[in-house]
């Protein structure tokens, strides 16, 4: 082997083979003897070793996958960021969920981290809790404890419920804007006499929803009803849903309740009322009522 010129730009011809562990035994022995007395080789080894280690340690079990995100994920993602930004502008009602990506700057304005949780009925989140006002007509309205949340009561006109993990319901008592409102007539999804309607009015910090249901049967102690906002991209395997709240129904089968949500009916134009059970897999979610928005 010709004498090596350590001053060449490329360095020793075996330095790359050395860091990759690809030298033949004879060459490896020769390089090992040469390197300690060669500053250039030591520098080259130091420079290339981290990359070579990364290369050697990279796992071949990471199979190449050609999967691409669904086309509508772009719209949903941009809408979610925009939604979070709007909520952040709505002060002082909203409380940050906690930014896990970095420390808080003392004195910095709280940024709202609430984001809509888009989940399928099959997915249950035991961490989120939210509350709604009591029902008015004979049934007890209570958002169940399936989800964990922290609720802060605020001064007159303002209250906020904050969910941890996957969803948020925002409470305000400011007068709703009269400029933007929708009606959502609800019809029995599989026949039957159940019906309802929801009136959605846009407020400064979200949407005030008045939901009235009729003809719902008492589903018993182990089940409840859940209200969902459904986006146009929703389909099996590609959820486009926001949970709005859960409720139970009394013997009258009727109830009127008020909910608050940041979900914009223009983006989630369909509302569904489904019968579900806590702690289940959601596979037995059964849509009872369904309807789509119409401008008032």
């Amino acid at each position, binding site marked *: 082997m010709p004498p090596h010129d350590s001053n060449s730009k490329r360095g020793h011809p075996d330095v790359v083979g050395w860091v990759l562990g690809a030298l033949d035994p004879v060459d490896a022995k020769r390089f090992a003897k040469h390197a300690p007395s060669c500053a250039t080789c030591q520098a080259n080894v130091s420079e290339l070793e981290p990359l*070579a280690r*990364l*290369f050697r340690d*990279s796992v071949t079990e990471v199979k190449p*996958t050609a999967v691409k*995100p669904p086309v509508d994920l772009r719209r949903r993602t941009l809408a979610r960021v925009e939604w979070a930004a709007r909520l952040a502008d709505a002060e002082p009602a909203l409380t940050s969920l906690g930014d896990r*990506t970095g420390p808080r700057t003392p004195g910095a304005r709280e940024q709202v981290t609430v984001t809509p949780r888009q989940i399928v009925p099959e997915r249950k989140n035991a961490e989120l809790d939210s509350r709604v006002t009591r029902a008015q007509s004979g049934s007890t309205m209570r958002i169940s404890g399936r989800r964990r949340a922290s609720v802060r009561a605020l001064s007159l006109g303002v209250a906020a419920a904050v969910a941890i993990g996957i969803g948020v319901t925002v409470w305000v008592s400011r007068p709703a804007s009269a400029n933007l409102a929708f009606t959502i007539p609800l019809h029995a999804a599989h026949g039957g006499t159940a019906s309802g309607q929801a009136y959605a009015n846009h407020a400064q910090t979200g949407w005030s929803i008045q939901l009235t249901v009729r003809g719902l049967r008492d589903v018993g102690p182990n089940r409840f009803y859940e209200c969902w906002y459904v986006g146009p991209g929703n389909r099996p395997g590609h959820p486009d849903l926001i949970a709005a709240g859960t409720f139970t129904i009394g013997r009258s089968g009727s109830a009127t309740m008020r909910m608050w949500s940041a979900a914009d009916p223009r983006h989630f134009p369909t509302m569904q009322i489904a019968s579900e059970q806590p702690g289940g897999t959601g596979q037995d979610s059964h849509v009872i009522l369904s309807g789509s928005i119409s401008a008032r």
Partner: protein
Amino acid sequence: MSIAHVETQRAREEAELVAKIATGDIGVPVAELYNRYSDRLYRFGVQVLGDAGLAEEMVQECFVRLWRTAGRFDADRGSVAAYLFVIARSVASDVRRRPSSRPLVPMDDVQPPQADNVDRILESMMVREGMDALSPAHREVLRLVHEEDLTQSQIAERLGLPLGTVKTRLFHGLRALRTALIERGFDATT
């Protein structure tokens, strides 16, 4: 936020996009970054979480957190790509910890890794993407070293090349891999 000393054109562009997001200009900058990184983030989510629905959730949350923390991004400390994948690791970890995060659309050909393998998965994905960016000649010699554990002489014999040519290709191939990783925001020099 300083965007001085940013090495590449792409890194500079992306640092400026994040700067705009930090000032409240969300729409176009977020959309552009989504166009550039959604595929990789989604693939990472699928690899780590083993579920398409959870991967979608992860992608969305990544951009929300990018918006939320845009004011803290410092281009002098790293690229937007690296920053996004730091966020992605954190979000994936959070999603995995949720009790309700059961796979809904399990990917048949992907097994979710153990929690402590997430970084390794990410690094492996980066290496694979970097390798895909190499010339066929460079990629082949590196592949033979990595996957078949061949020595330089064995590679020369396998490919019918002079030993010197193999050494040269390994040298340039490894450096090209480093460049490819840096372009993807992955600093493999430490």
